[in-house]
């Protein structure tokens, strides 16, 4: 404090030198801050106004959905050079989808992993897929003894193979933890994600006991001719960067009477898929006649994904 020297500024008139210095400091600071966050000016390349304002899937009317799908199709054309069509098949009443895998047949060839990669427009650079296959020594069910990165000819002596993907739990912990209801379970048991609503907190990724969820750490790269044009809004459309995704039992296929891509690709016949509510379905027969088990049953997640052995 004490004596105050004052100087004259053209706009402000008489101000103390200290006040003038503060003004200079504040201006410099604000300028430096603007410069520091200037990369954010490129944000409009990532997020358009319509995208920013888009409501949650469940709040979209049919005409809203048409607008959104058209916009996303144009975006796919623009950013990937691909001519895609986005649809929104709804659950079929009286359907509860169940998957069963015959571990006596699975030989770890990994065709399901590849098929998922292609079907679901996964990032080519990271070779992403919703399926991981564990190679396990015969004689244990302890996953700690498993290995997901084997690259030798299969089946290897003394090993069995266990593919793991989203178990479509009936008590899904990932849905409970989501703070914004960006993920939910549909009537046919499939847990889906609204990729335009997810805020990317990754709490669901921490909550999932089966490592079923993936995060888009960057924008997926897919060559135009490899983009799968048959896309579902809640399933395999190209995902935006910064959101979580997961296996959706290929709902854009299965709700239209087709089988999941991983099943079609399996050369061993280990994979069985169907509606458990249908008394004549294969999955129903397996449930009634085989001794099936689920992964981590003690967690109470009640998976719709079953494993069994023939012998």
């Amino acid at each position, binding site marked *: 404090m004490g004596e105050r020297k004052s100087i004259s500024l053209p706009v402000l008139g008489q101000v103390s030198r200290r006040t003038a210095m503060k003004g200079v400091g504040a201006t410099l600071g604000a300028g430096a801050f603007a410069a520091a*966050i200037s990369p954010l000016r490129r944000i409009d390349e990532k997020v358009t106004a319509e995208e920013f304002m888009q409501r949650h899937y469940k709040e979209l009317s049919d005409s809203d959905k048409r607008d959104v799908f058209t916009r996303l199709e144009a975006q796919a054309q623009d950013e990937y050079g691909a001519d895609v069509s986005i649809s929104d098949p709804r659950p079929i009443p009286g359907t509860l989808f169940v998957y069963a895998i015959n571990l006596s047949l699975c030989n770890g060839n990994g065709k399901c992993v590849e098929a998922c990669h292609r079907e679901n427009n996964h990032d080519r650079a990271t070779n992403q897929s919703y399926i991981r296959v564990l190679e396990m020594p015969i004689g244990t069910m302890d996953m700690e003894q498993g290995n997901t990165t084997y690259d030798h000819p299969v089946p290897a002596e003394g090993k069995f193979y266990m593919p793991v993907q989203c178990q479509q739990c009936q008590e899904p912990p990932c849905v409970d933890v989501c703070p914004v209801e960006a993920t939910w379970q549909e009537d046919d048991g499939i847990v889906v994600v609204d990729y335009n609503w*997810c805020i990317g907190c990754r709490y669901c990724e921490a909550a999932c006991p089966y490592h079923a969820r993936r995060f888009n750490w960057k924008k997926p790269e897919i060559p135009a001719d490899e983009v799968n044009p048959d896309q579902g809004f809640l399933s395999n459309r190209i995902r935006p960067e*910064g959101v979580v995704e997961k296996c959706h039992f290929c709902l854009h296929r299965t709700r239209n009477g087709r089988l999941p891509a991983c099943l079609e690709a399996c050369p061993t016949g280990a994979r069985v898929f169907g509606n458990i509510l249908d008394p004549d379905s294969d999955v129903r027969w397996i449930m009634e006649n085989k001794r099936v088990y689920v992964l981590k049953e003690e967690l109470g997640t009640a998976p719709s994904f079953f494993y069994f052995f023939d012998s």
Partner: protein
Amino acid sequence: MSQASTHEHRPQHWMSYPRFLSRSLGLATDGSFGFYAWMTCLTAVFLVGANAWANQVVQGMVVTNMTDHVSWGLYIANFTFMVGVAAGGVMMVIPAYLYHDKQMHDVVILGELLAVAAIVMCLMFVTADLGRPDRFWHLIPGIGRFNFPISMLTWDVIVLNGYLLLNLHICGYLLYTRFLGLTPNPRWYVPFVFVSIVWAISIHTVTAFLYAGLGGRPFWNTALLAPRFLASAFVSGPAFIILSMFALRKLARVPLPDGPVHTLVKIIRITILINLFMLASELFTEFYSGGAHTSSARYLYFGLHGFNGLVPWAWSAIVLNVIAAALFLTPAAMTRMSVVTIACALAFIGVWIEKGMGLIIPGFIPSTLHEIVEYTPSLVEWKVTAGIWAFGLMIYTIALKITIPIFSGRVRDLARDPE
């Protein structure tokens, strides 16, 4: 002095509140060379962090070293730790308001201001961790879709913001009335103080429940997590307050009494032992029973299948906390400032490791399919983290800069002083 006359002419808030704000702005920006140097350094670090964050937003979370296996890292580690520091301030509030410790009452605002700065840091760490910060509004009740009460994260949004508002109100009200030269009316702040005591416990409990509620992560899925969080919060918070009181005395020549420091040391003597005891209890359960559920703890303390990235961190945390506990228990902790300073610094760093990287990362290693992918933060993550710390320290410094002259009576609203 002018107390007798105050009830006659009630303050005209629409005039005196702007004066309070402008005087606060003046206080916040007036200072010695040392003050300006400190603030300039903090600004520089903050700007580096802001720039790193802006780049992260534009380029995507790929600039971090997090993966689908270790999907939370340095940001959430620091978030967790800072919730503890925010809650730790309550260890001043309880003696001041429940036990009527007069000296503590005079300085309790240091703890409340620390809570404000720490909560702001928490909110920044969470924002930095979001893949889509542009969709932040989806979290706002009423506008977005708030998954309350099922998602523990929505509870955390409520308790953290509520704690911030409570402390802003308490500090703001006390500062403003002191500025006016009035005696604060207990009706307008004491109820809030009592709510804030319970609320402080809640912020750290809810944050622990975020992790403890995940059945698929056995390392976090323990009932002991919330009590451990609180015990270590009541080490790190008071330790930071003691250090800042010493800094104020030494660097800013603020005359602060010894009593509150002694009280806080007495508190830490207990809490640091409780924290170590609960750690030991946790370790016994993990290692004596064994099995797959304990592989995270094995990874953390001894390494697993040749991966041991966190082992040096984990043991440093234990060593730091044990040495700090020993120092706090010596009689010198009551008499020698140097001993207390070292003990506080060691305990603060020890808890930062234990509750930060030492808690978050092993929750993901091995993964739920028992794969081992290790994690080391990227340069961008360190920059953003340093920037947020710098910003938090700026808030705390400025808050103290305004508060101390007003609380000591040196600064008053001259316009309404009759003299």
